């Protein structure tokens, strides 16, 4: 008997916790209508939508910790009951979550693709069920775009352009050789930023020569190693600048330069992100400029776009809501308007 108690007690405790948790989730989904008039209640009911947000990250990642609260706040403001999932960048898990979402028949699905190539079956299932899909943060490939109603998120090509414009401004007319450190191979954000940067350098400041470019995995550690190898290969004396596709990469490249006993402030270096890692480097003068990517803007506008689709405010055409690519240099690095968020 005592053994049975030992077995059942934790199980019952866990079950009770699950009941409370799922109950809480259900409670939070219900609109607060107590005390309101019948008309107001009807109106509130009419404006309430159930939406699934299929995300590849959440509070387990730096970007998600500020993306999620804003997403939830805007949803509460617009009367949207959000059910948020986190596939941890596992395409199979996200596909399973998509099946659950379609079975639940929500009013809409907000999708942040874990793997861009793998979302077509999900989009087709949603389309077959008549559920509108909007995309957040990372847009779909061209062949799949007609299965979604819109995209909101960073203008990844524009970020590359902005980073290149900062580089052109600080270089002026001088002839400069730089090395380029991209994100991971095949990543759509890395490709778009690369294209935006190289197109703009070619058009606006052909006096800047890209000696070599290499891929990283977006981490500071790998970037430091790759940058160090590139410096060795090209010769430190031949390099005057670095373009990094991300602030973490820029931080790694700066460490690689300083490991050679030189001052990074003497080099032309630009990044993208304006992160907690990048912003202080800009303020110190080691990173000449970066481009602000706001995770709270991203989270909030994902819901706003879906709301405009559900209320019919958005037109029939696919909507594009692009994050402004605000440049951050030493002049404005400490402005509250560009305070880093992740």
């Amino acid at each position, binding site marked *: 008997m005592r053994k049975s108690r030992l*077995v059942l007690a934790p199980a019952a405790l866990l079950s009770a916790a699950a009941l409370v948790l799922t*109950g809480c989730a259900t409670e939070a989904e219900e609109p607060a209508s107590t005390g309101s008039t019948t008309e107001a209640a009807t109106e509130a009911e009419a404006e309430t939508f159930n939406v699934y947000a299929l995300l590849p990250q959440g509070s387990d990642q730096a970007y998600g910790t500020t993306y999620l609260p804003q997403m939830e706040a805007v949803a509460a403001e617009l009367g949207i009951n959000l059910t*948020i999932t986190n596939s941890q960048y*596992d395409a*199979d898990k996200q596909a399973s979550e998509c099946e659950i979402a379609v079975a*639940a028949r929500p009013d809409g699905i907000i999708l942040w693709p874990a*793997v861009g190539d793998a979302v077509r079956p999900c989009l087709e299932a949603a389309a077959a069920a008549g559920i509108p899909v909007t995309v957040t943060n990372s847009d779909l490939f061209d062949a799949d775009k007609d299965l979604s109603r819109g995209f909101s998120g960073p203008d990844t090509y524009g970020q590359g352009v902005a980073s290149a414009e900062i580089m052109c401004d600080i270089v002026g007319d001088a002839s400069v050789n730089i090395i380029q450190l991209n994100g991971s191979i095949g990543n759509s954000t890395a490709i778009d930023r690369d294209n935006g940067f190289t197109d703009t350098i070619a058009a606006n400041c052909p006096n800047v020569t890209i000696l070599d470019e290499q891929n990283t995995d977006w981490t500071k550690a790998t970037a430091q190693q790759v940058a160090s190898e590139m410096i060795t290969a090209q010769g430190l004396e031949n390099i005057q600048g670095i373009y990094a596709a991300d602030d973490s990469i820029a931080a790694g490249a700066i460490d690689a330069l300083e490991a050679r006993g030189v001052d990074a402030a003497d080099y032309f270096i630009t990044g993208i992100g304006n992160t907690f890692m990048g912003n202080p480097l800009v303020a110190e003068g080691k990173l000449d400029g970066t481009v602000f990517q706001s995770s709270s803007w991203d989270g909030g506008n994902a819901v706003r776009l879906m709301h405009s689709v559900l209320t019919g405010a958005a037109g029939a055409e696919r909507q594009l809501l692009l994050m402004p690519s605000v440049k951050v240099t030493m002049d404005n690095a400490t402005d509250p308007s560009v305070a880093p968020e992740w």
Partner: protein
Amino acid sequence: MSNQSVIKMGSEAKGPLGKLRVTLARRTEGRAVGLFIIIATVVTLTQPLVFTAYQVTLGRIALIGLVALGLTAVILMGELDLSVASTLAVSGVIMTVVANETNILIGVLAALAASVVISLINAFFVAIVGINSFIATLGMLFALRGFALVISDEQPVKLLNVEFGIAFGQPILGPLTPRILIFFAVFILLQVFVTRVRVGREFLAVGGNRQAAYDAGIPVKRRIFTGFIISGGVAALAGVINSLERTAADPTAGSTVLLASFAAAIIGGNYLKGGKGSIVGTLIGAASLGMLQVALTISGVQVPVQEIFIGGILLIAVITDPSSLRAVWGSINTVIQGLKNSRAK
């Protein structure tokens, strides 16, 4: 003290309820059934959609359970195969790359053939060289992950025959998709193999007491090879299914599969040191885990909280093992006795 508890259990075994309790306690999957009933009850009360949309829940169970079923073959022998996650990824990539050049059937065969080679290497290091299976398969896990990235050029490989992939994800028998049907087919095959076929039955003997298995004339090394081939082959099958359903192969796939598969096997009552466990137990473990995951997803519970629940279920599965309970009860009694003695002084 332990004698007392044995007498108690015997006395309580009278009546149908007592007999059922003793039966549940004796069977390795008994506790898994108990957990399954508790989870199913909670889920029915809070998220009935888990049952009304049962084909979705079955899909999630098959996603977790397929790799877990194969893994059980090596766990029964007291070995581990950590490389299943990377085998899944590399098989998906091989299938897609080959299918894009030839056709899907050849792609599937190439992936399965690759899994056999991987399994033979794993088994060679474990059975012949004598390396601990945790270390040998951990090395393979990393090596295959790198291999998958190299052959995919570090990016997802799109399946050119998208129409076939989309059709593969559709129900073909009532609400059942090919994934669910394959999952049940693998379950039946493995269950029959482990319970009815001599080679399969010997897995438990190898896991229970390896020296005794040698002495009894069981070809232990050959059984280890067979177990790893089953484990790798089923993981490759899961990789092929995933890639077909998604119409793309992701070289980083399987990141969440490894822990979920082990969790399903452990919840199912399989003893990681081998000699105790069953394929049915793994099925029940996968069903419990799958239902819980779907219910928590519908509830919008975030991943860290989901992990607390799954961890809690795992802990319950482990601590409710009769030997663990005896140890806990023995420790409590020792403390109580110590307190009594100190008061008496």
